[in-house]
């Protein structure tokens, strides 16, 4: 009469099936992705589910593989900056600056203090935009659309600052080897001051809506947790690792670009669950504002780029009137500048963690090998372990809080 097919599923109470009803205990398969409203980017998870509970997850990535590393072997150094934009496209300036610093390490260029402070300001603005998106979309995934609309206005405002500095909104290609391409314009300074004055109120409003909200807390606490040991074993870095309790921040441990001059705290969580990740990102936004304030207060006078005529494009007036500038301009644009032989690694604290560039140069005009150490690729491996035993809605919220960005995942 009733065929009870028992499958080895750990989370099912066998009593239910044996109580007498014609229960058939089967596992079902649910395909989450690659196109799905809640995945932030295209990656696929094939979930094996026991009712609402997830038993196992099989991941497929590579749906947006664009072969960055192969492209990088064919492009002169400054053309690779446009590739780095498109990795973690929510915070493109951080990727750009990280790449510039890697090449400056290889070439041995010393960047002046003013340019370093300017870079810090742009990187912290980028971190603000990244965390704004991540936290507000986490709220959207739990159903709170209002927070996203209010806070996103400030991301548009930061886009205006980017436009002042480099002309683009999203894929910024900001800065050059040796510094920045232009100094802060008065409009940019005014906008940054306005941001420092008014964003705190908007953040407080967003927090008031979401952070102590009963529904949000119930959805995100004790969901998708990971312990510090497992996180370290999985190579987690960034807010995901700090939420688990390990205070590893590249800005504090291996300071670059004058980060040692600034005073900031590194927020650390306790349980490594979704709520902790939300809180860590929220607190990092406050710390970013603190860093920007210090940088603006102490912005030193001086040159905004290094004196490296072989690698830094000369001013257009000089190109039209000066022979050496014309020659340098020609050689740089045509990519005929050779780099020294060497191998360097530089990492910056990206929005998601340690973004590293391993550059092997054989003396030619393009890198011999460029490996991007992408944090998103590395910590997304842990996703099945984090969602085993939870429900589908928890899996969505966990994925959202991990801030997996497909451009970074697949290069």
């Amino acid at each position, binding site marked *: 009469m009733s065929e009870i097919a028992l499958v080895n599923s750990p989370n099912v109470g066998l009593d239910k099936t044996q109580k007498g009803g014609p229960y058939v205990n089967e596992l079902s398969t649910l395909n989450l992705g*690659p196109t799905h409203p809640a995945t932030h980017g295209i990656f696929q998870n094939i979930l094996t589910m026991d009712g609402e509970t997830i038993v196992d997850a099989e991941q497929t990535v590579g749906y947006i593989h664009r072969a960055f590393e192969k492209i990088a072997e064919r492009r002169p150094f400054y053309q690779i900056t446009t590739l780095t934009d498109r990795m973690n496209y929510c915070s493109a300036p951080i990727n750009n600056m990280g790449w510039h610093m890697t090449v400056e390490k290889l070439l041995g260029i010393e960047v002046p203090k003013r340019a370093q402070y300017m870079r810090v300001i742009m990187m912290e603005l980028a971190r603000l935009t990244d965390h704004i998106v991540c936290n507000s979309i986490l709220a959207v995934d739990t159903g709170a659309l209002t927070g996203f609309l209010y806070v996103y206005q400030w991301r548009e405002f930061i886009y205006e600052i980017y436009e002042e500095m480099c002309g683009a909104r999203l894929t910024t290609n900001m800065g050059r080897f040796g510094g920045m391409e232009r100094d802060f314009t008065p409009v940019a300074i005014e906008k940054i001051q306005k941001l420092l004055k008014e964003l705190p109120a908007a953040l407080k409003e967003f927090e008031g809506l979401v952070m102590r909200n009963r529904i949000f807390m119930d959805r995100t606490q004790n969901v998708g947790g990971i312990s510090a040991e497992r996180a370290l074993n999985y190579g987690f870095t960034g807010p995901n690792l700090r939420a688990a309790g390990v205070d590893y921040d590249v800005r504090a441990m291996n300071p670059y670009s004058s980060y040692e001059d600034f005073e900031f705290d590194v927020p650390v969580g306790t349980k490594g669950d979704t709520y902790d990740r939300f809180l860590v990102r929220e607190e990092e936004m406050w710390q970013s504002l603190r860093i920007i304030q210090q940088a603006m207060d102490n912005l030193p006078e001086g040159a905004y780029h290094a004196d490296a005529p072989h690698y830094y494009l000369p001013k257009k007036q000089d190109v039209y009137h000066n022979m050496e500038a014309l020659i340098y301009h020609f050689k740089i644009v045509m990519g005929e500048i050779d780099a020294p032989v060497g191998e360097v690694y530089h990492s910056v604290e990206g929005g998601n963690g340690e973004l590293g560039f391993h550059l092997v140069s054989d003396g030619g005009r393009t890198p011999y090998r460029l490996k991007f150490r992408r944090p998103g690729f590395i910590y997304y491996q842990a996703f099945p372990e984090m969602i085993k035993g939870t429900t589908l809605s928890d899996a969505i919220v966990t994925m959202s809080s991990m801030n997996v960005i497909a451009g970074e995942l697949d290069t």
Partner: protein
Amino acid sequence: MSNSTVQVAEAPPGVEGAGFFATSLDSLVGLARANSLWPLPFATSCCGIEFMSTMASHYDIGRFGAERLSFSARQADVLMVMGTISKKMAPVVKQVYLQMAEPRWVLSVGACACSGGIFDTYSVLQGIDRIIPVDVYVPGCPPRPEQILDGFMQIQELAKKETTRRRNEPEYKALLASYGIE
């Protein structure tokens, strides 16, 4: 009482009388379709973030009738492909397109969707028009939200002017046949 800052849209040509307005069915259906398009945002990479900006309050695509985004292809009118489509993803795009019901339009946003963009590599599909017919191309890397809205407005123009049964026209059938779609 006239409010001079409010622009009233042009009515289609027709016969007006006391309490009635008569026009051709095509223009009426076109007007209704154009102002209530439900997009399917197929956002894969950076252009998807510019789409988020377009959706947010500053550039608001809801003004154009696209307030309700449909992630189910069966209920969507416009397939907005935003971002790089790799060869691994191409069958998925085609499957989503096939699931859409007529009338359907395709908006290809961004250089990568139009032609492969800056990624001329072994793994990237050099333009989605290799697998599905595209109606409007929006170039840019990424295009500004105003450009995406412009592309959307051009889809609206297409929707307004098309006959109610585009699917039966021989050119359309030939176009689909060239892509191997029934």
